[in-house]
């Protein structure tokens, strides 16, 4: 039992340690890719809090990712001497407000209607970003440079990718841990139970609408944080950050990894970006390949890769301990 409780902490610590050691053996190209994976993993985790935990299918998550990305870039360009923290904080603040406003308007609707409206609002954000050239740079996008990181006692230059990689690992990793922690809180459990039986939660006295709005705002802010890191990573942001394609990307990542576990989307972003990087060298039509995997999973393995891994693990453990299969299930 004690082991059970400590297991997540242990695996989190192992992942961080692995993440810290990996750049020592990887080439710069791969460190770049790993940074991208970590950033998109947070984006996918935030998306899965909506899709997997709350059962809300949104086709508009890129509004927050894009708002965060553009907010960070605009802040860096227009506020001279702004620190790294300032840019990130500004992006998160902006997306929190955006999430609250959009959520307040859209969460009155459920199911298909909600899905449709999120797509329409994503297009609205894209249209605004296209037209508002003085701020977003229109089709040209915005170029920024990463400011140095001020830790109080020392200043770390962020120009080198390895430095930025460690910064990303710590901050984005911490945000992911926080998301995981969130699912364990009373609030996170409320959201989960609401998905299962909303009527009952209402009878028990929970205000489901407010819980949903809080969750939506929270996921918006987290997506905004990943968007800000996206801008800092590429030192450039274009309209594609706020486009529906960016929502499609996160949907594919999340679903391919699996929506039923917390770590599924992280795995999904790994797989997606690796496929994107290697398949795009071979063929221009790699999105088609991703789409086929997606349809295959929707039809046959709705739990995604994590379901496949889970059933392999079950199968292996069952073989070794044939005497107590019931205990496995109960835990």
């Amino acid at each position, binding site marked *: 039992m004690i082991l059970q409780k400590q297991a997540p902490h242990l695996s989190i610590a192992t992942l961080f340690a692995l993440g810290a050691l990996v750049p020592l053996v990887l080439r710069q190209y791969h460190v770049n890719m790993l940074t991208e994976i970590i950033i998109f993993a947070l984006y996918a985790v935030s998306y899965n809090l909506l*899709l997997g935990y709350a*059962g809300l*299918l949104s*086709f508009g998550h890129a509004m927050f990712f894009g708002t965060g990305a553009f907010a960070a870039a605009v802040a860096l360009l227009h506020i001279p001497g702004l620190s790294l923290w300032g840019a990130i904080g500004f992006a998160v603040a902006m997306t929190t407000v955006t999430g609250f406003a959009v959520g307040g*308007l*859209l969460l*009155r*609707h459920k*199911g*298909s*209607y909600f*899905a*449709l*409206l999120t*797509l*329409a609002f994503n*297009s*609205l954000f894209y*249209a*605004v970003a*296209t*037209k508002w050239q003085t701020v977003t740079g229109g089709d040209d996008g915005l170029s920024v440079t990463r400011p140095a990181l001020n830790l109080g006692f020392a200043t770390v230059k962020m120009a080198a990718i390895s430095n930025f990689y460690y910064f990303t690992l710590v901050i984005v990793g911490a945000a992911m841990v926080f998301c995981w922690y969130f699912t364990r809180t009373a609030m996170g459990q409320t959201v989960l139970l609401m998905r299962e039986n909303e009527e009952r939660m209402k009878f028990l006295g929970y205000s489901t609408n407010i819980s949903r709005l809080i969750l939506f705002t929270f996921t918006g802010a987290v997506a905004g944080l990943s968007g800000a890191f996206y801008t800092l990573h590429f030192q450039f942001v274009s309209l594609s950050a706020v486009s*529906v394609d960016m929502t*499609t990307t996160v*949907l594919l990542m999340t*679903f391919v990894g699996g929506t039923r576990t917390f770590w599924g989307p992280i795995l999904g972003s790994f797989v997606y970006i690796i496929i994107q990087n290697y398949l795009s060298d071979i063929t*221009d*039509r790699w*999105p*088609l390949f991703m*789409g*086929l995997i*997606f*349809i295959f999973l*929707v*039809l046959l393995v*709705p739990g995604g890769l994590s379901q496949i891994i889970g059933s392999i693990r079950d199968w292996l453990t069952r073989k070794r301990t044939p005497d107590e299969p019931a205990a496995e299930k109960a835990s």
Partner: protein
Amino acid sequence: MSEFIVFFLHGLAYAGLLFLVSAGLTLVFGMMNVLNFAHAAMYMLGAYFSYTLVAVTGRFWPSLILCPVLLFVAGALVERFLLRRVHVHGHLHELLLTFGLSYIITELVKSVWGNYPLAMNVGGFLGTSIQFLGILYPVYRIFIFLCAVLVGLAMALILYRTRLGIILRASVNDGEMVNALGINVPLVLMGVFGFGAALSGFAGVIAGPLLTTYPGMAHEILIDAFVVIVVGGFGSLGGAVAASLLIGELQSFGVLLFPKLSLALVYLLMAAVLIVKPSGLFGEKQ
């Protein structure tokens, strides 16, 4: 004044196209409770099929009949072999499936026809312009509006004046009971989905010569069709008519009166409806 008439007619033509797309979408949603994200992708397929057919035969008319038939078959197959399978997993999965389909269709279109716009000429009488009310106006845009009126009337007649329409409307209320009365409801639903696909294909064929045929056309019309459904009310045919007209004219006059805001006008209308009457102008209360 003549400028006003021209823009009004432009609005009517676009409204006709919007109605053709959103009618199929709203019909499938009303009957099967499935929001078909692949609807616009099927519309795009219609346009591309028609482009190839016109290139081969040199005529526009055959594609107007053949493409909807092809898409009817495709839609019925999708319903029978894909959609029905995920139905047990619930609503979310149906949405995800249609979304995945639209993604794959878009990618396929890009690899078969290329990622650039294709222009098409209708030729013949449809390609000419006629003179009336002191203006010279292209026949083709009038043709679009007439098509939409005909399709709308036909749908209304079938739904409210025939035995098939009674079965359809009864299936919405209580599919199990209709099934028990000896009517093959799954077959009916397969037909409905196929009809929705055929309608979107028809709209695509018609849209080809008006707007150019390109891989982004699906997304563009999908958003407008969604706005039509939100404004008109989910599953309401009358709402689709009214909202199509409203948005068609808004788009058209938006370009004339507020060129800078024209993109946002439609969304503003949608946001206003959402705040004032969330169920849409003609929708029932949720």
